[in-house]
């Protein structure tokens, strides 16, 4: 099982971000390396990539405010 964490290098400063949208629904099968969510920080739209393959579990829904390091989901083995 792998945590989906907002990466430390996703944006430059310590600003808060918000989860704009999840690309896949909770329970969907996703592939490592694919885009799974979009985050908005200031005026930038950022991409969150799946760290592993498996079943997506969404812990933080769209519109949740996040910081770097926040765990927003999990990828469970199939």
């Amino acid at each position: 099982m792998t945590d989906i964490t907002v990466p430390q290098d996703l944006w430059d400063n310590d600003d808060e971000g918000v989860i704009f949208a999840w690309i896949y629904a909770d329970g969907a099968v996703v592939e490592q390396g694919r885009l799974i969510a979009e985050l908005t920080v200031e005026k930038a739209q950022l991409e969150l990539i799946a760290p592993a393959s498996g079943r997506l579990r969404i812990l933080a829904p769209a519109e949740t405010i996040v910081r770097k390091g926040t765990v927003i989901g999990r990828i469970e083995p199939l």
Partner: protein
Amino acid sequence: MTQQAPDTGGSARTLTMARAGREAVIAEMRKDPNIFVIGEDVAKLGGVFGTTVGMAEEFGAGRVIDTPISETGFIGIATGAAMAGMRPIVEIAFVDFIGVCFNAIFNFAAKTHYMSGGQFKVPMTLMIGYGGGYNDAAQHSQCLVATLAHVPGIRIVTPADAYDAKGLMHSCLQDDNLTIWMVHKAIWGLGWLGTAIKTAMATVPEEPYAIPFGKARIWREGNDVTLVGYGITVHHALQAAEKLAAEGISAEVLDLRTIVPMDREAIMKSVRKTGRVVVADEDYMNCGVTAEVLATIAERDPRVLTAPAIRVANPDIPVPFSRPMENFALPDADKIVAAAKTTLQSSC
């Protein structure tokens, strides 16, 4: 409400309009080396609205070209390139800048195929953002869809969700004529542009597909009144339909989807059923797309209407900068609800 997308085998993906349009552009560029993108901030930045993110890395500086602030210059470059056999995509981030492009668009791109007796095609696609609602004032909030629709020789589409965005972009890029693909800024899917309208996101298949020009789309069926819109006003109309349903009024929401050529038969089919129509448009009222919809009904059969038609559009004023003033002027769900109820109270 989302349109059913065919099952691709992989998990269903919900995309923003910007991302869906971009997928179509990338797929077509991989197939056809003659396609290139030109505009401000398309390469390094990936487009002001995220329309070209990642493309400069994949296709190189020769095919994704950053320009200075010089619309007159680069629309001319692209029009000439199209006549010489290439297939340019020109990003015009804000439709308000189109004024300095009129000569290239109206007198060359729209007419050269005809005036050359078919010797020169102009397979150029313009990718344009339009609309207001986020306090960007008179010169950065316009729609100007009617202005572009008025001159013959141009195909114009206004997708209202991600599924239509991708399918219509494929059609634009495969067409040998001047095509304009226009997206309202509030529905691109950009968090920083204000409240995101989530009904514009949709399930989008991974493989390419083309949606034909000239086909409207019914987003919601109803019997009491037809709400016609395009772009953002489809989403306002959907909200309005929900509010009307709570009061026992059944509204049909018709998305024009293509402005030129307009699906006039779809308009007639709907108003024959309901007998009442509200047309919503964020463009200026006078001589607008709304007027063309009503002209269609008046010409084909005005007797289908059981009440006067109502247009909900931007008043004929410059879009205000002041937030309360802009909100007062812009079409929204409540104004559409009020108009729909008025059609139900009056009768011809």
